[in-house]
């Protein structure tokens, strides 16, 4: 059974004149224990999608989906309160800027303690207090923070970014989630710290069978850590498949360009040659092209592309393009 199954999810920005589809009919499925990468440029709607899954979007966004199943439950039929109860029990999210996501006036310990689920505690309230403290310390140990006495007493501004991110992960683990959504967990971090955070996530996946949705703008970086990848462009679904499929045989022109633009990913290119890029830049929300949003930049675009393409499935490798590159690899 799929852990999460989203079909045609749209996120609409309600403005005065006409609604803007910031995310336009995106599909996402995840199995249990899977690490899926969600890749796209900044502004491609990947963070929005993640926040829509967790349900923390503001009132100005409207979420709509043909299917939104969580372990077989249809979440679209539930009221927002029921949906929040289910989601906050099983799904946790860590955000881009860990420092900004911790309350600056509350100590780390207090913030960790309040994340601990009540159901894990037993006994009277004074016993629960003690258990909460212990649970917070255990969580810190779990994410590799050994000096828990210092950490529990400090305020977020006294810790480094990487430590804050570890605390955020600890907080996310407090409810023992089945799915962890990591929204660019290593943005603005040094590469050594990046490695530590990714290794921590990978070990959690292996030891606890926790599924992870890893959101990143950096295709090359996530390939080391993911089983499957979904690519988005400008709020539209582009391509999904296993990491090998996406990386070695991308069917969509956009993914092809993404892979080619990375020097390490594509070792075939000679030294000092120009990297492949697509002309133009990602369209702004006010002026989105009709049909396939890559159309104006796509090297393979034809007249048909003014209509949004249907998703084609080649043995689990899904691609949303009228003219996929499938035949060019035989």
């Amino acid at each position, binding site marked *: 059974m799929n852990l999460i199954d989203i079909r045609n999810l749209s996120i609409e920005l309600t403005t005065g004149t006409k609604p803007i589809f910031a995310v336009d009919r995106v599909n996402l499925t995840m199995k249990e224990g899977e690490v899926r990468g969600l890749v796209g440029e900044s502004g491609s709607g990947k963070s929005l999608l993640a926040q829509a899954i*967790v349900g923390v979007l503001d009132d100005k966004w409207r979420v709509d989906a043909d299917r939104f199943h969580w372990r077989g439950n249809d979440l679209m039929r539930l009221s927002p309160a029921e949906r929040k109860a289910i989601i906050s029990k099983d799904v*946790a999210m860590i*955000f881009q800027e860990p420092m900004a996501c911790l309350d*600056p006036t*509350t100590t780390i310990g207090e913030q960790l303690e309040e*994340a601990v689920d009540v159901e894990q505690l037993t006994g009277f309230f004074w016993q629960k207090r003690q258990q909460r403290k212990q649970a917070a310390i255990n969580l810190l140990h779990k994410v590799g923070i050994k000096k828990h006495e210092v950490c529990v007493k400090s305020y977020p501004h006294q810790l480094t970014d990487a430590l804050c991110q570890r605390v955020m992960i600890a907080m996310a683990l407090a*409810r023992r989630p089945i799915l962890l959504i990591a929204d660019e967990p290593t943005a603005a971090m040094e590469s050594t710290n990046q490695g530590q955070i990714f290794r921590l996530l990978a070990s959690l996946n292996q030891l606890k069978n926790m599924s992870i949705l890893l959101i990143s703008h950096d295709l090359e970086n996530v390939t080391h850590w993911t089983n499957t990848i979904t690519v988005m462009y400008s709020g539209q679904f582009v391509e999904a498949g296993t990491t090998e499929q996406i990386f070695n045989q991308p069917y969509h022109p956009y993914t092809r360009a993404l892979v080619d633009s990375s020097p390490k990913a594509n070792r075939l290119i000679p030294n000092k040659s120009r990297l492949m890029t697509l002309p133009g830049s990602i369209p702004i929300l006010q002026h989105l092209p009709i049909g396939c949003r890559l159309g104006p930049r796509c090297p393979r675009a034809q007249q048909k592309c003014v209509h949004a393409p249907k998703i084609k499935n080649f043995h689990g490798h899904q691609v949303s393009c009228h003219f996929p590159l499938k035949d060019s690899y035989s």
Partner: protein
Amino acid sequence: MLIFTLRRFNLFVFTMLLLTILSFSLSFLFPGDQLVNLTGQVNASPEQLAILSDKYQQNTNIVSQYFSYLTHLFHGEMGYSMTSHLPIATEILNRLPATIELTSVALLVAMFVGIPMGFCAAIYHRKVPDNLILTFAMIGYSIPIFWLGILAILVFSIQLGWLPSAGQISLLFEIEYVTGLQLIDILLSDSEYKWQAFQDATRHLILPVIVVALAPATIFVRLARSAMLEVLDTHYIKAANAKGLTFSQIIYRHAMRNAIIKVIRDVGLQFANLITIAMVTEVIFSWPGIGRWLIESIYQRDYTAIQGGLIVLSSFIFIVHIVTDFVYAALNPLAREPQHGA
């Protein structure tokens, strides 16, 4: 924290220095003889004036004159009132407690009413409660104080007869002077009509406090509302939401503390405003405070009193300012860091 305290103290010393320079220069700028303005000895004989001139080092240069003025100030000698011929220090000591009582109660009322209302408005952003509270804030802020005070007396004292219109306490009660703060003195006294006196003093306090507190409360409403909206929009509230906390948990544990910090910063600033309002209100309600005394001194051209009142009132405002700074630092861990100590 030590650096923080030292910086505040430093600021206090320098501001007082400037204030005393201003007050000293006023004695030159006011019409009449400078020595008379400074001491308030209007009917002194030439011999007495000679002694005074010696005491205030009138024959030396202006800097040592200023320092001799400072020395007198530190000894609590602010001269004599030109009208009542009493020492200014005694006059102020008799009146300042009443003002402290009125303004501190009004400040507390303004904070405890205004800040929760502002939070409420922010939580129900762009809904009916928000609009109602904003309307109230707009109206309350626009009403002139002198008009509101007279209206309050007309309605509640004269027409309805619920509350007394003037003074601090009914003349029937005799309260021993201990601290000068009427309510505390009543509680300390061993009179058998203690509770009646307390009730009476509270009834006297209600109308002036409401009049003084109204405008600051409306400012607090708006400050608290915008602070809360700002906080509710931050990442850590979103993260707390994703953590699975309920809305009320988020408000009570995270949003309120962060929003209050932003408001506390401005309380000290608003206090100066509140003192001005209190001065006008004291005149309307015949409150025996320093504000009314100062305004009367201005009418009577009592230059010595004006100088003394200026110094005392401004240092009072300044002390409240520093106290709010310390409360701010106690609430906000970021402000306690040395690099944010400014």
